[in-house]
């Protein structure tokens, strides 16, 4: 028997500016009692800042520098790549946003309901007039993810910015 999945869990479209957006109380089970395995996050957002600001996500309000991240990218028509640890929330340059420049980002968090796996993430950041980045990350925490917070270096997200979460049963 097959199980329809890829369920929309949360959709936020800002009607006023907000310095952060938190998707909380992420479910572990779908409507039929199947366990969600993977969490897909999408964002399409800008900020009130006139300067580029990094988009970041934080899992379970965890502010420790427990993330290892790698990516390769086209930045302004040049190949770039980096791997770095100790990261708290921020992602790559292609995720950066300002008041006239939105980014479109997706994050795939594998086995987000597991309590014995560190969280492995695939991400993609697209900033149409400047950059495209493909990346992976590992968050050294085995707790199930029950909330995700988007932020941009403390600058408010613009009205109309969107943040969505989907759950995939497995």
């Amino acid at each position, binding site marked *: 028997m*097959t199980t329809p999945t890829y369920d929309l869990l949360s959709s936020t479209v800002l009607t006023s500016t907000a310095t952060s957006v938190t998707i909380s109380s992420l479910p572990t089970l779908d409507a039929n009692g199947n366990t969600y395995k993977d969490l897909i996050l999408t964002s399409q957002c800008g900020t009130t800042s006139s300067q580029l600001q990094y988009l970041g996500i934080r899992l379970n309000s965890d502010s420790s520098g427990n993330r290892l991240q790698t990516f390769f990218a086209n930045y302004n028509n040049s190949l770039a*790549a980096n791997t770095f640890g100790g990261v708290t929330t921020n992602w790559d340059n292609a995720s950066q946003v300002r008041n006239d420049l939105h980014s479109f980002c997706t994050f795939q968090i594998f086995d987000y309901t597991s309590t014995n796996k560190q969280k492995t993430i*695939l991400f993609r950041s697209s900033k149409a007039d400047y950059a495209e980045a493909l990346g992976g990350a590992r968050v050294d925490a085995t707790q199930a993810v029950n909330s995700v917070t988007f932020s941009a270096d403390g600058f408010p997200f613009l009205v109309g910015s969107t943040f969505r979460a989907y759950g995939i049963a497995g």
Partner: protein
Amino acid sequence: MLLGILNAQAEGGGGATYELLETYNATGSPSSVTFSNVSQDYKNLQIRISARTAGGGVYMQFNDDTSNNYVQHVIYRSSSGVSSGANLNQPSLSWNTATNSDTAGNFSAHTIDLADYTNTNKLTTGRSVYTLLAGQVFLTYTSHLWRNTDAITTIRVLAEGSFTNDTRISLYGIRG
């Protein structure tokens, strides 16, 4: 609300229905997992894997074909920079995984897409992405080809050595 998305990067589109066909959670250190009698009711398949193996690798074969009919072209980020390469005329598709010598809880993450797997007029093509951030660091994008026009009815996923407990392999169908 249900949304189906072919793209492994889940780029926010929708329309097709995305359905879980079968999932396997490893216990007892198995060396392979087989999805048999794969439903022919879909256009595309996606396989999502969270993997850790004894030897650090995972392989995939279709319809019990073990001959050198598999091709991959890759672009990848590793500790030495960004590189490209090809695996031509291989007996399987292959990817790296976390190994038992890595820190507990390290698992690699994979999405593998197979396009038009029921079509008997096309060689079977697909693509994949995976990341491994453990003893080794990899971020790899791959195109792949199975030099066969048969509809895929069986998918075998093999470990290098054996699968570690909690390795998870899920098969999804996407209607078109």
